[in-house]
């Protein structure tokens, strides 16, 4: 099916498929970064599997239903979802070479991501102070590993965003900076996809059980 479609296009116009020269750098860079994101999903799949296996092993300690505050989780989810939205709109204004709009949307994205992290950090601190730290049970070890790894990714994404905003201010929206922004927005959207798995498997399924 694909081959027929490609054959219908004159060879010199079908770039990146053996005719017409290599694909543009933007396509190559984003595709490579897409492969990295998929490998990140594989990393998280190991942590999800560990959580699914260990979530019942509370060793007499607190269960998820006793520890989780779903109102906070809902606010966290909305923060991340809206930051994904402003990130997408920011990428759009960067493509249209509107640096001022991009910077405003990047600021929204940063604040929403930071709010997510603040809620998560206070949740973790509250659990540890109740004696429900990662050393308490297999359930809590896998919980802190899975949710913590996602939080570390969000932290990395925020640091990366500061670095990119500095590049936009200093260098402007030139092609190399746009390619980096594209990779960053892929990363940020991917973190939101992982969070869908986290709030479904960890918080919602853990709470009603």
């Amino acid at each position, binding site marked *: *099916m*694909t081959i027929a*479609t*490609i054959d219908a*296009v004159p060879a010199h*116009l*079908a*770039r*990146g*498929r053996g005719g*017409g020269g290599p*694909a*543009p750098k*933007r*396509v190559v860079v*984003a*595709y490579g970064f*897409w*492969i990295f994101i*998929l*490998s990140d*999903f*594989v990393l998280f*799949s*190991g942590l*999800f*599997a*560990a959580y*699914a*296996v260990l979530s019942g092993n509370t060793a007499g300690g607190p269960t998820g239903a006793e520890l989780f505050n*779903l109102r906070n989780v*809902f606010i966290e*989810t*909305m923060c991340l*979802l*809206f930051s*994904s*939205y402003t990130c*997408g*709109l920011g*990428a*759009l204004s960067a*493509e*249209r070479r509107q640096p001022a709009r991009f910077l405003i949307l990047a600021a929204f994205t940063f604040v929403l991501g930071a709010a997510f992290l603040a809620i998560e950090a206070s949740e973790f601190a509250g659990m540890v102070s109740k004696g429900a730290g990662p050393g308490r049970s297999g359930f809590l070890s896998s919980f802190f590993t899975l949710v913590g790894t996602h939080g570390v990714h969000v932290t990395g994404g925020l640091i990366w965003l500061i670095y990119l905003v500095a590049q936009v201010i200093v260098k402007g929206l030139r092609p190399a900076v746009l390619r980096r922004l*594209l990779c960053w*927005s*892929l990363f940020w*959207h*991917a973190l*939101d*996809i992982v969070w*869908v*798995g986290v*709030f*479904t*498997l960890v918080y*919602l*399924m853990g*709470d*009603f059980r």
Partner: protein
Amino acid sequence: MDGHDRVFDDRTPGVEHEELTANFLSYTAGLGLAILATIASFVVSQTNLLWAPGIPVGLVVLAFAQIGVHLVFFLHLGSGPDHTNNILALAFGVLIVFLVITGSIWIIANLHANMMPMSVNIPR
């Protein structure tokens, strides 16, 4: 440039090659659908709207629906020929994720079922 001279590049995830307003609309539509799916998941888990044993299934279905919304509206993955590479890579990633998760759960559940009861005292 007329349509016949268009260069047929592969597309990248995260970029939509449409009208700029359509692009803004697609992000907004994605946001709306994702919020709906999120609220539905929280409602389903906290109420008796679904038959109780069906709740995990409902939650998984809603999660997959929301992930699909994110892939289509935020990452702009499509089914066209210029997305073949991206979709093939995604399919491979999904295969590995599926193998790791179901394989782990299957193997550990099997070990668990065959484990000696903890109450038996083993002489040391």
